[in-house]
């Protein structure tokens, strides 16, 4: 019987074919089962549903900051003074680790409003307001310094603090998300 199966030496036998086919179907099946088991850990529908928040900004004075919560993370809403905006714009791009113009980090005509994710891009701590060597934020966890535009200037963080999607629905109201 085995002679019959193995008579063509250089060609796969029927038994080899069955082995490979069975293994392949088994692997595909295992992959199909693994997929839901892995993706169940991704953000679920209830987490994704909390995607937008509304913030009243009418009471924020110049030079001060409020913190809103969005997706479990703090959002810094900072109403900068004119000097601070000037200072942010004077910085040359080649001094920056993650070069980005201050103009690109705010909405046009709303230059005093800096709205950003208050999360250090190093390991996710919340930086402290009005501290650090660049007059912006300082992360106490591992010593990252951010300037008044939220750009990384010194320390281990690789990127500027992130700007979320947001819009001014009126002069006093902001929607984040």
């Amino acid at each position: 019987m085995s002679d019959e199966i193995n008579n063509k030496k250089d060609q796969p036998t029927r038994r080899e074919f069955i082995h490979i086919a069975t293994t392949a179907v088994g692997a595909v099946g295992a992959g199909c089962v693994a997929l839901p088991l892995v993706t169940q850990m991704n953000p679920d529908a209830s987490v994704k549903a909390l995607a937008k928040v509304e913030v009243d900004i009418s009471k924020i004075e110049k030079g001060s900051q409020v913190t809103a919560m969005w997706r479990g993370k703090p959002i810094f809403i900072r109403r900068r003074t004119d000097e601070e905006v000037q200072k942010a714009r004077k910085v040359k791009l080649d001094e920056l680790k993650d070069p980005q113009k201050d103009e690109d980090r705010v909405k046009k005509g709303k230059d005093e409003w800096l709205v950003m994710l208050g999360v250090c891009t190093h390991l996710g701590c919340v930086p402290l307001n009005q501290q650090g060597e660049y007059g912006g934020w300082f992360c106490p966890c591992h010593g990252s310094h951010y300037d008044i535009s939220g750009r990384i200037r010194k320390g281990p963080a690789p990127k500027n603090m992130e700007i979320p999607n947001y819009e001014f629905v009126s002069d006093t109201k902001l929607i984040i998300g």
Partner: protein
Amino acid sequence: MSDTNYKPTSALGKWFDERLPLLTLFNGHLMQYPTPKNLNYWWTFGGILTFCLVTQIITGIVLAMHYTAHADLAFSSVEHIMRDVNYGWLIRYIHANGASMFFLAVYIHIFRALFYGSYKSPREVIWILGIFIYILMMAAAFMGYVLPWGQMSFWGATVITNLFSAIPLIGESVTQWLWGGYSVDNPTLNRFFSLHYLIPFLILGLVILHIWALHVPGNNNPVGIDLKKDGSDTVPFHPYIVIKDLFALVIFMIVFAGFVFYAPNVLGHSDNYIPANPLVTPSHIVPEWYLLPFYAILRSVPDKLGGVVLMFGAILILAALPWLDTSKVRSAIFRPIYKQFFWLLVIDVLVLGYMGAMPAEGTYLLISRIATVYYFAHFIIIMPILGFMEKTKPVPLSIADPIISGSGNFAAAKKDKI
């Protein structure tokens, strides 16, 4: 290795053993198992570690009966354990300090292996299984520390899970997958609880493999030589080693109880008695003491990905040690130069640990950078070169020999014991 002539004495024992030879297995591995007769107290930490694992599993199962894994309830359920549950304070303090004692014992166990060259051929697999156990211990300890949902829990979890965001391209999706959201939150707490419950049983499985692999070549010993085949170098595990292990365990338990009853919070961080607040990071985040050396390595690198790679590299490099160490002599007793480097490594790790607890700035940062470079240099440069350069002392032919002849080697060996 095991006594093949073993027969249970009772009729029931015989009946059972013929159907499932469990008694033969226990007799071979826990009674007759031949152990080198010169094992010192540094060899008792294997037994102590087994005790620690069992303690953590038992107290952990009990705590899980009273704990609630929900972001809104976890903190108060831990307070409920401390105040309302009968002896809850005792069980929780044993569990929390038990983690520290577990790591204390495992560090002694690891450094014992480093001193006496226990990782070298033919024991590489035992060593690598040990590193897997150590990594799982760190994972279990980290996730366990998150469960009380205090400030250090929350921010420790944030910092550690953010390490994965350093992975190029897929980093962000990986972290969100780990979190089950856009930040550390209730889904994260839930899965950490599930995994924290799972990991000790994975460790238990690896411990069985670790002991199985150990019982193939048998124990290394303070002089680090292969044993004579005639059995003159060995004593049976029971009662000789069992009693010695138990005595060491009692001493260890005194220290353990000292922490539990007199200083139950000294190894923890007071910030963890503040409920988690995602809007405020504590001004000074530190991990538990046993993770500090790796934390110092992470912070010493001014680049995010680089820091993460070096931190994990610091653990993984241990797995390559059997091949990085080129010396044929196992025990540091006969390696005068290595012995000095061994103690330098101990000091280096302690320095890193201290730096991990200090703020990452100025002199502290400089010292942790030097210590990080030295840590890697020890394994990558010193260990391979030293094996070729070092002139080792003469090694005895057997454990029995120098004792009988009273030769100088044994006297030297005895004096040099740490």
